[in-house]
């Protein structure tokens, strides 16, 4: 029982210190972790965010069909999520050599005239500066035989399995420094897995805000509704990180929840 009381005190202390940090020591940039099981599309989402708001030619990592491709957490700092850039009368300074009609509306947005104080206030609400942390996939088991099924030889598969276990530990450790989480789930898979439940339980206990992104809605057997039904207490945004479908909704939810 003593252990329970200690845990409760720790949780309350964690909540209080978080509240004090939010009120008095607000960070300029929030660290947002992209979490989820292997092959949910975490790196694809991280790349999509960077392509949209930073540079279309920069990748945070490589996405392949082999699970645990990301075995080290990778952080990209200072991403400005600017939702006003798309709808307000901005002119975009596009990427060199591209036609203005195909420019990414979020990139390098500069207003035509100096904004008024009301406009500045609205813009501030629509902007969010974040560091994106692409984390290795969380799993309870890593069998080197699974990698051999993708054509890796035994030595390479064992090496990858070892690195993958280290990656899982690293992803868990990162939770201590994360301000918000985009929890990515594969819409074609059963969302009610222990890994998803453990992540959600931990984020709730630590008071870390989260948005669930139901990824891969471009696939025919996708069922984002299963994820919505499984976790009704959290916002769930159906997306396709690969095709870029519904990304605006995710950015809006991130701007709301991670401020």
């Amino acid at each position, binding site marked *: *029982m003593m*252990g*329970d009381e200690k*845990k*409760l005190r720790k*949780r*309350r202390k964690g909540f209080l210190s978080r509240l004090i940090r939010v009120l008095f020591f607000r960070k300029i940039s929030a660290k947002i972790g992209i979490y989820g099981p292997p092959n949910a599309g975490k790196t694809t989402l991280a790349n999509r965010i960077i392509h949209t708001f930073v540079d279309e030619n920069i990748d945070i990592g490589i996405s392949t069909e082999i699970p645990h491709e990301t075995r080290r957490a990778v952080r990209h700092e200072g991403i400005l999520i600017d939702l006003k850039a798309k709808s307000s009368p901005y002119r975009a300074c596009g990427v060199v050599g591209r036609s203005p009609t195909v420019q990414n509306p979020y990139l390098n947005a500069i207003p035509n005239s100096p904004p008024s104080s009301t406009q500045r206030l609205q813009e501030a609400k629509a902007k969010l500066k974040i560091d994106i942390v692409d984390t290795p996939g*969380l*799993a*309870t*088991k*890593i*069998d*080197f*035989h699974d990698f051999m099924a993708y054509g890796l030889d035994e030595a390479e598969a*064992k090496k990858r*399995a070892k690195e993958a*276990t*280290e990656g*899982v*530990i690293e992803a*868990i450790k990162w*939770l201590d420094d994360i301000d918000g989480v985009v929890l990515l789930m594969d819409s074609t898979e059963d969302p*009610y*897995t*222990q*890994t998803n*439940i*453990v*992540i*959600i*339980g*931990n984020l*709730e*206990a630590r008071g870390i805000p989260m948005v669930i992104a139901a990824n891969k809605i471009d696939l025919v057997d996708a069922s984002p509704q299963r994820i919505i039904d499984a976790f009704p207490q959290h916002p769930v945004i159906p997306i396709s990180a690969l095709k870029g479908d519904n990304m605006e909704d995710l950015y809006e939810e991130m701007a709301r929840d991670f401020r």
Partner: protein
Amino acid sequence: MEIKMDLISEDKIISMTSIEKLRFVLDGVKAGKIVILEGGLTSEEQMKLIELTMTEVNEDFPGIEMSGYPSKKGFLNLRRKTRLTVVGPARVMRTIRRDRDLISALISAI
């Protein structure tokens, strides 16, 4: 091949510290047993169990399969009441269906 199953009472679990619980579970699972904990592990303990498991994964022990009922919110939503957790060796146990109040697992000896 026989598979051993340990059903641990809540009284025994309460008397252990977090790390004792995790060590007890992981040692049992590594020995090939399926461990069922009445009262279960908290989300934080389950995350620590995943972390501990990853430090011990090797060619013979690829990890664990874990299932449990989600915890219930307790007094003033502050204290969470855990319910039941089942942990087994990944090579032997596979969860085939689960929801809030039902766990269906397949146990197969190789």
